[in-house]
């Protein structure tokens, strides 16, 4: 017995030590990003480069907002991420209700098809999707990107919501049906209000997935008017010359929305992520 508690104490100290190492490993890149964005060019490059900014300045940020299309990129990312979130919420609520509550032939098959299509990676699909969007003249449009993003967000959201809807007690719904409420009525009045945390998680996932997406945005968009932040950032490299100051500023600012959302939704996010694993 004594040896076990002794080992536990040792493990605790090893744990604390490793925790410090992991915190450093995790946080140093963020430190470097923010520190760079606050430096003058003189401190960023060459022999006078510093590890800690000596004369912090916001000039990179003024350059970012004044001379680059950064604001446009932000606007485009916001439009596309919000559009995608709304559309996938709508599709997912309806579809998940059918899969969780209604009886019809082919239900198992459709549920399986959804999971499979969520697992098919975008890197297999972008080449033919390019042709699809070209035929629909949706290259270089917000709608085009929103549509292609639905391809991964709708299956995921539907699958996640299906799991949550199943946990809403049937009795409430039965009572409403007996009282003359329609099927869709029970969805809107009973299931949705009881699944608000799930809806928040689903909205969070589709928003951040669209905000962070890179491959489709890179292939299906060429003009500044539609370009999103992820692809716009890589264009701060002009002819192999990097503008690291403004770029790190832009990187910091555009990480903020998904990171802040993550911090707000933390607990639910973990639940959503582990649903597949924990339930299986």
């Amino acid at each position, binding site marked *: 017995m004594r040896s076990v508690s002794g080992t536990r104490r040792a493990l605790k100290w090893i744990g604390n030590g490793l925790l410090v190492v992991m915190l450093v490993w995790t946080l140093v890149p963020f430190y470097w990003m923010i520190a760079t964005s606050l430096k003058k060019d003189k401190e960023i490059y060459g022999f006078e480069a510093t590890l800690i900014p000596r004369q912090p300045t916001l000039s990179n940020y003024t350059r970012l907002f004044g001379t680059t299309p950064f604001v446009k990129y932000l606007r485009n990312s916001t439009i596309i991420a919000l559009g995608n979130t709304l559309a996938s919420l709508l599709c997912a609520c309806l579809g998940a209700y059918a899969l969780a509550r209604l009886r019809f032939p082919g239900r198992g098959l459709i549920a399986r098809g959804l999971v499979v299509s969520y697992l098919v990676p975008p890197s297999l699909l972008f080449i033919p999707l390019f042709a699809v969007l070209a035929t629909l003249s949706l290259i270089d449009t917000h709608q085009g990107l929103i549509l292609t993003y639905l391809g991964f967000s709708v299956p995921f959201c539907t699958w996640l919501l299906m799991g949550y809807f199943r946990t809403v007690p049937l009795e409430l719904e039965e009572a409403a049906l007996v009282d003359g409420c329609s099927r869709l009525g029970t969805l809107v009045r009973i299931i949705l209000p009881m699944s608000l945390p799930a809806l928040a998680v689903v909205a969070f996932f589709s928003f951040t997935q669209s905000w962070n997406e890179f491959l489709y945005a890179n292939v299906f968009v060429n003009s500044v008017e539609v370009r999103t932040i992820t692809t716009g950032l890589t264009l701060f490299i002009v002819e192999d010359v990097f503008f690291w100051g403004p770029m790190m500023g832009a990187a910091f600012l*555009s990480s903020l929305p998904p990171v802040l959302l993550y911090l707000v939704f933390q607990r639910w996010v973990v639940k959503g992520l582990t649903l597949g694993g924990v339930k299986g």
Partner: protein
Amino acid sequence: MAIRAHDAVADRSGVVPVGSAEVRPRRKSLTLRREGQLAYALLTPTFLVVLFMVGYPFCSAIYMSLQDKMVGAPGHWVGMANYAELFRDEVFLRTAWNSVVYTVVAVALKFVFGLTMALILDQERRFNNFFRALLFVPWAVPVVIVSLNWRWIFDDLSGFLNNFLITFHLSNSIISWLSDPALAMGCVIAVVVWAGTPLYSMTFLAGLQAIPRELYEAAEIDGASVIQQFFYVTVPRLRTIFLTTVMLSTIWTATNLQFVFVLTRGGPASRTEIFPHLAFMTALGARRLGMGAAVSLVFFPVLVVLIVLLTRRMLRPSDD
């Protein structure tokens, strides 16, 4: 379970089932048919999205890989010629090897670090929630930004790493992290691990916290050492989560081109070239859409196995 409950609803919402035995099944099938129609109507938007954004493109990719299609020009049927050409191509063979190394090493490291991180966060400690929130932040940052940030850390002349090593006299010459053929792959994998570890520790931690404490107490009374407790209580309980996370992550790791795209562009001398990036470069750099589709599909047979296994796992709580 769910199906039986539905029967109850159908019986109550349908017309009250009175009358002879012949009438009953017809009425029931009528409600069923209505329910079916409603279900199909509700599923239409989802179905259309999956059909046009996943199903059709996927079939089209297979078809395209059998053609010599270029950007902006119609293709001709060439059968397996694209695939045959690939297997004679030295860059492709190197890419195949790279992809395997990249995926296996990255997934293994993420697993080990993720499990360590989860075990540490499962210990009792003040401010644990705060530490957990910090450690998981990389998960939320867009991969492109992670990669750009690290490219700047690895920068030859002014990056953090060289700057740090020289300032503290740990190295007296500049190390070309991303353009040294011996180092490039290691650096790319380090970034993949940095960004991917939180997903593992999130799922593992959730699993750890679901293990009842009594199991450990019982094992301790039976004289099990801490290591024995880990292997006989913790590991068996987390087995499912291990499998699911590793399979999911293998798919996403193997098919993500963003790290390589931003960090090295596949260089130096194809040392970090992997399938998704090669497919991208073939289709959009060299404008050979057919060949690009072939490159992206070569890996697919491996993915199919993972997708089938995962689908079964992810739908297990439901009825089939």
